[in-house]
């Protein structure tokens, strides 16, 4: 088992996720965290109750929806193959499944000294981006800000910034306008999944 996850997404973020109202990159990163975190799985499951209750309260429009012709369903349980099981330092299940990736076969692009990136495509209409970032041990990113919300999920190793240390499964949420300077763990480096609603802003 991986060490306990101590840093979870903000309550407001979990609400928007359960509502289906998070932007696509942020939803991807929260879904990855949820797949690694039993506690947040329970939270998200409970929050679907909010949607269910509000759906029941909404005023109904027009007449009934016609029932389609009833097809006699088989009673056998259909089971799709679900090969993914969370293991040590694999990609979170939703990411591995959507992109058919494993951490070992990623084709990294070098961004700079000690910094490697792999972009994960999203739907064409989406603003923002989703990518994996690999930092070699001790690598220090430049101080930077963000044009929109950014959510970082640690997959392997660890990094720290002024707010503390983040390990596998931990989430760091940064709002637009906040600046920080993450530093990868001296021994392990780190690989993170990063969801950004707006571009990264370098501060010289």
């Amino acid at each position, binding site marked *: 088992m991986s060490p306990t996850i101590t840093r979870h997404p903000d309550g407001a973020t979990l*609400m*928007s996720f359960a509502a289906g109202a998070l932007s696509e990159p942020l939803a991807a990163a929260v879904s990855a965290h949820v797949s690694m975190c039993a506690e947040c799985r329970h939270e998200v499951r*409970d929050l679907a*109750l*909010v949607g*269910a209750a509000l759906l029941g309260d909404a005023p109904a429009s027009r007449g*009934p*929806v016609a*029932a389609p012709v009833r097809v006699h369903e088989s009673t056998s349980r259909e089971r799709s193959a679900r090969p993914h099981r969370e293991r040590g330092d694999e990609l979170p299940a939703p990411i591995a499944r959507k992109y058919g990736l494993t951490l070992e076969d990623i084709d990294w692009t070098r961004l700079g000294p000690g910094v490697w990136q792999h972009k994960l495509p999203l739907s064409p209409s989406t603003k923002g981006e989703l990518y994996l970032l690999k930092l070699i041990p001790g690598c220090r990113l430049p101080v930077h800000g963000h044009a929109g919300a950014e959510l970082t999920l640690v997959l392997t190793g660890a990094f720290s910034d002024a707010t503390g240390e983040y390990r596998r499964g931990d989430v760091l949420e940064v709002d637009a306008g906040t600046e920080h300077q993450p530093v990868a763990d001296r021994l392990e480096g780190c690989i993170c999944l990063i969801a950004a609603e707006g571009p990264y802003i370098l501060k010289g």
Partner: protein
Amino acid sequence: MPDFLSRIAADRSDGAFRRLFEEFGPQIRHYMMRQGADAATADELAQETLLAVWRKAGLYTAAKGTPATWMFSIARNLRIDRLRKEICWQELSEEIAEATPSEDAAPEDTASERQRQARVQAVLASLPGEQRDVVTAAFIDGLSQTEIAARLTLPLGTVKSRLRLAYQKVRAALEDLK
């Protein structure tokens, strides 16, 4: 409402099948139209949601949530996939339950599931209007926090804190049922 849906889903008769669409079709249509679907598309998506609820009702166990939560989750995922044409990252609770059978303790029984639903309904009914509006904008209108801020002309931080307060109340209300 959730009990009524549970009964319909448990009763596999043709009459129950028709009633499912009559009773719940309009809610889902309304939900889809709030996301900008035209009436015909909203009807199609309502049918598709309820067919899935009906099919999955046979697989119902408390661990996978109530029919009411599936109905919401299925409708939400269809909305993201068909109306927003985005990748849907929200897994249905039953898929999560299947993918992670051993680690997640299942809630004891259906009664406690109903109790959870009742508690959440009570919390929502008691929310101050300003929190309830923000929660409804997210769950029913599917608006992001930034979109809610723009629609209600509020700072983003205020939207977040209202959502967070509502979240903490839901959590507190379910605490002893964990």
